């Protein structure tokens, strides 16, 4: 009897497993139309449409909902639509977005940073805006230029002008004490780093360092300050226009060599540089006045830390590499229209409203962000406003989109850590990264 029941249970379980497995494998084909919003609310005839927007939680005081409710109120009234927001932590943003889209429960309008785009473009989940953008739009937005394109096209509109721009911050008081001016070139950086690294109180221990830089971040985030600028200043890049990794170029090796030498040849970094994330290195060494130089994101919060310091400081976005090239990495994250949005016309109107001269400008005013439309008042941070405007066309740029970039960036970061720890030479490190990156499939999928 028990044997018969066991068989029955086994057969039923196997059938369930196979059914669920098939369902899981069936998935959602690329570009298919899941049953996502906009949904209809209210009674028939006087229905209010609903548009769902997913954004990362950005406000430091957690009042994202308050800000956006105020921003979209006129849009909701004008279009008889209810715009609902989900604010997701940065840490979980990509995972949440991915699971939302794959299960057909994603947003109508979303937010993407450069590293996110390729996967969603290849899956047909995000709209190509070529057919939406008009001549008027190109004339309105300052960010609709070539350097903000993804794979040669626009898939979104920047939420604001460049943000968290990576710059070189220097301690003027230390530079004065060693007879140096503000650094303009790599040679200046190398010379200052060596001269500033000193035992200032004569106890036999180094207590002032050339560069406050941290290499202990657990993932690739600190490439923002520790890598992109340097390879651009050397005149190189990580990927070419086809997506092939070209980091092992002469320029890439030169950038790696500079960082390697600063730590291992000139000993200009603090002893615990490999344990600290870059922000910790900045807080522990530059902020107390114990380091001459730091490469950091030049946001308001960065400079607020220096407000109580007993030294003068300056910063630049225009550090030049060996051949005079410049480069300062900026984040230009974008608002996107998802392909699953049923009412794309309305969704597109919302994208334009959230980024344009009305809603977008209001958002930037409330959050103190840089402008991204022509003639808009600049509500950006006072300290960096002028320098940003001056370097916008010469130095500042976002990173280039590339397929499998997240995997490559993580590998690059960890290989740089090994190089900085002295286990591998700069040339070998760059060769290993290029070999790894190019072993991955970086071609666009066949349609």
């Amino acid at each position, binding site marked *: 009897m028990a044997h018969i029941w066991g068989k029955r249970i086994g057969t039923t379980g196997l059938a369930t497993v196979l059914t669920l497995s098939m369902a*899981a*494998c069936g998935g959602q084909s690329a570009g298919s139309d899941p049953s996502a919003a906009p949904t209809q609310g209210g009674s028939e005839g006087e229905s209010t449409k609903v548009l769902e927007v997913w954004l990362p939680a950005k406000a430091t005081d957690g009042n994202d909902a308050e800000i956006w409710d105020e921003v979209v109120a006129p849009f909701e009234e004008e279009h008889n639509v209810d715009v609902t927001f989900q604010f997701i932590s940065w840490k979980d943003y990509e995972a949440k977005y991915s699971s939302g889209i794959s299960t057909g429960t994603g947003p109508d309008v979303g937010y993407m940073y450069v590293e996110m785009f390729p996967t969603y473009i290849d899956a047909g989940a995000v709209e190509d805006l070529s057919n939406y953008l008009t001549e008027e739009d190109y004339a309105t937005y300052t960010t609709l230029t070539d350097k903000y394109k993804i794979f040669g096209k626009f898939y979104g509109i920047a939420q604001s002008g460049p943000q968290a721009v990576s710059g070189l911050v220097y301690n003027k008081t230390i530079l004065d004490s060693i007879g140096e001016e503000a650094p303009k070139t790599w040679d200046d950086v190398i010379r200052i780093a060596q001269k500033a690294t000193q035992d200032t109180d004569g106890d036999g221990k180094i207590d002032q360092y050339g560069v406050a830089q941290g290499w202990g971040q*657990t993932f690739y985030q600190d490439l923002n300050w520790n890598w992109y600028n340097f390879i651009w200043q050397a005149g190189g890049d990580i990927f070419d226009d086809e997506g092939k990794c070209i980091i092992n170029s002469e320029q890439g090796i030169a950038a790696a060599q500079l960082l390697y030498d600063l730590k291992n040849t000139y000993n200009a970094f603090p002893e615990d540089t490999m344990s600290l994330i870059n922000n910790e290195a900045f807080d522990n060494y530059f902020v107390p006045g114990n380091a001459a130089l730091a490469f950091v994101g030049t946001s308001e919060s960065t400079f607020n830390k220096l407000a109580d310091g007993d030294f003068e400081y300056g910063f630049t976005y225009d550090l030049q590499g060996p051949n005079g090239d410049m480069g300062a990495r900026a984040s230009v994250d974008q608002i996107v229209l998802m392909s699953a949005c049923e009412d794309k016309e309305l969704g597109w109107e919302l994208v334009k409203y959230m980024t344009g001269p009305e809603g977008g400008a209001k958002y930037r005013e409330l959050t103190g962000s840089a402008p991204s439309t022509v003639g808009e008042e600049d509500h950006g941070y006072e300290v960096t406003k002028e320098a940003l405007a001056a370097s916008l066309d010469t130095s500042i740029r976002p990173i280039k989109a590339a397929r499998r970039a997240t995997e490559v960036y993580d590998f690059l970061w960890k290989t740089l850590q090994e190089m900085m720890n002295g286990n591998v030479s700069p040339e070998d490190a760059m060769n290993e990264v290029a070999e790894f990156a190019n072993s991955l499939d970086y071609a666009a999928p066949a349609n």
Partner: protein
Amino acid sequence: MSKELAYPRRKKQDWSSYLYILPMLAIVIFFWIIPILISVVLSFTQYNALSTPHFNGVENYKALFEDRIFRQSLINTLIFVITVVPGQTILAFLTASWIDRKGKNPATQFVRWAMFIPSLASVSIVGIVCRILLNNPSSPLNTLFSLFGLNPSLLLGSEKAAFPTLIVIEILIGSGYYMVIYLAALLDIPHSYYEAAKIDGASQFQIFWKITFPLMRPMTLLVILLGSISAFQSFDLVYTMTGGGPGRSTTMTAMVYLYLYSFKYSKIGFAMAIGNVLILVIAVLTIVQRRLAGRKENILY
């Protein structure tokens, strides 16, 4: 007695026993067995969670065993298990024995709570706090170490020290939970055993070695089994404190590697292959452990 009279009684017993196990059976099937089977199916596909999975045979497994970082992550995981499990078992047992012997007083109460509280907190939070304690120059830990001329902020960046540091922290976090298990078992040992031993003139060590230790053997096997599974699956601490670094694989464990491929690189098929290899390793080790521990005197009732 005729056969007709005997059968109905047996049938009734069978039905009720199935009903008792039904809730747990449903949970096990839907939340354990089915996901494992789905992961086996997906491990033979190329799948990024956004588009349709494509069958690619054993490519994921082939790539996995050619992957130097994966091999290192398996070695690291085994090192983690064979150091953390004995470490936390011994610490938990010794602490529980000490608390049991000293009885209830402020010192034992403090130690009991100080050791148990970390096991209540989220390991991710503990990891973040430990990172701050190690890296912040004004942290109490930094101040304490500096009295001995040591600099704890060097630990996480050092290829030699990072993994041992994680192991020590994991031992400290985990031992509180197992200490409570041991303490409950120690309190169950009848005092008459100890009194009889004292009357017979046994020393403290003899009492511990001949009475306490043998009676704790079944509990020790349970603690080792639970600790091994937990150490194999350990993720939060490594992920928050080092992310597998410094470098490509210094502290990389199989679970962290699985997470990276599943959630960060969207290579679900490859990640499922990692998961299945890990399940296999844990299953084999569990069977071996149960065989070794399968003696009658070790059975825990």
